[in-house]
């Protein structure tokens, strides 16, 4: 390789004194023996440290709060992949995970990234208490800025309904979206109606759906048609339920 960088020819191997060759071979052998004697490095999972305060991060990033927030979430995101080892989410201390997410949100309140991580990454762990912790975290942060963060709570409502099988919790989240997030999409604001329907609260669902249609909030013709049909179905189901009760 050295010939690539040098002009002129190299001398033959005979020009190298025997002692130099011997020293080279000996040193190389020693290096290999030395390495072989060393213990094989063991992958060791490092525990997640508590997040520093927002002020520390803000100052350390020279006032670049957004960059500090981005580095915080990336650090947290990459934490489960340490050299030579992959830490399952369930092994993480979720209180510390929440502290990192909270700090990231404090530094960059407009970012949805920490809530996305909470609801769709750490919330997907196969452990109910941890799922609930993440949902509650998202709910608490939603209340701070409902119009900005409703979509993550909507995801938690769906998670509560289908994975946690906790209809009252799903209803609480859906109700809060309807109540606080005025700019949320129609599907999210109407979620409460369908959860009530699933819970067998047909009367309440009908009242809400009727109210929604009466206020003129829904303007899209297809959506209007779908919701009207849904209202009719609810009325029919309620009537048939009432008839069954009279017969009994």
């Amino acid at each position, binding site marked *: *390789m*050295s010939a690539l*960088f*040098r002009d*002129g*020819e*190299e*001398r*033959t*191997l005979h*020009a*190298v*004194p025997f002692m*130099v*060759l011997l*020293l*080279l071979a*000996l*040193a*190389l052998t*020693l*290096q*290999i023996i*030395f*390495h*072989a004697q*060393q213990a*094989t*490095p063991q*992958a060791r999972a490092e525990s997640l440290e508590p997040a520093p*305060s927002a*002020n*520390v991060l803000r*100052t*350390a990033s020279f006032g670049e709060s957004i960059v500090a927030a981005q580095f915080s979430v990336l650090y947290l995101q990459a934490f489960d*992949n340490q*050299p*030579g*080892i*992959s830490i399952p989410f369930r092994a993480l201390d979720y209180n510390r995970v929440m502290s990192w997410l909270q700090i990231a949100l404090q530094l960059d309140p407009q970012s949805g990234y920490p809530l996305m991580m909470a609801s769709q990454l750490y919330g997907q762990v196969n452990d109910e208490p941890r799922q609930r912790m993440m949902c509650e975290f998202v709910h608490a942060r939603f209340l701070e800025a409902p119009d900005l963060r409703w979509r993550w709570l909507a995801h938690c409502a769906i998670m509560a309904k289908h994975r946690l099988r906790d209809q009252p919790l799903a209803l609480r989240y859906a109700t809060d979206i309807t109540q606080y997030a005025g700019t949320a999409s129609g599907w999210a604001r109407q979620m409460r109606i369908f959860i009530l329907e699933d819970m067998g609260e047909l009367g309440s669902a009908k009242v809400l759906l009727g109210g929604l249609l009466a206020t003129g909030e829904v303007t899209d013709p297809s959506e209007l048609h779908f919701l009207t049909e849904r209202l009719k179905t609810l009325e029919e189901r309620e009537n048939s339920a009432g008839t069954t009760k009279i017969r009994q």
Partner: protein
Amino acid sequence: MHITTIGKYTALEALRTRVPATAMLALVLLVCASLFIRELAVFEAMRFQTGFYAAAARLVAVFLTSVYALASITREFNDKGLEVVLALDVPRTHYICGKLAGFMVVAMFIAVVMSLPLWILAPAGAACTWTASLMIELALIAALSLFCVVTFSQLLPAAGFVAAFYLLARCITAMRLMGAHPISGEDTPSQQFASALVEGLGYLLPALDQWTATSWLVDSPPEPVQLLGIFLQGMVYLTLLTAAALFDFHRRSL
């Protein structure tokens, strides 16, 4: 005799090319920067300052030692000073050993200067261990730079090789861990090849990530056996690099 003379003049050359002044200037700048970092920290201010200074000083010391050794030999090649020296009755082995001795004196000086603030910032025992480890590391970097510049003759490829070697040696333990335990869990031929390659590199490189650690200063100093291991590894690798430089230099046609 030749070795001592060449070594002495190499050290003298360092003095005349303002290496001590550059080291002192770097020291002042790093201390100022570490004081600034200390002011930024809301708590554990001393830990922040020590950690920043130690990590930065280590890199700066490696940079100074390597650049000085590379530039010195390159200038000698370009000025035909080497031909003049070898026209005298100086064996090539003496020339390399003399140059290396001179570079090691410079490396020791840089290590001592750069570690001075740590005697105030950290416990004396930890500072002493850290300085000893830095001396061995810089001696190794000096030998590596000498080998590279003898082999490549040109400054750019030699400096590139030193930088790549140093980065690789600082990462090799993490690479070995990742190679041995792939996250994907796949045991494909490409995975096996990559793992074998990294393991092979591990045999040829010193694990510099375990040397001159900042944690010795801010947490707890290493066990004596660890320092002994570093010393032994340093001596073995220093011999290997010197032998490799001698091998290439003896084959060099003037």
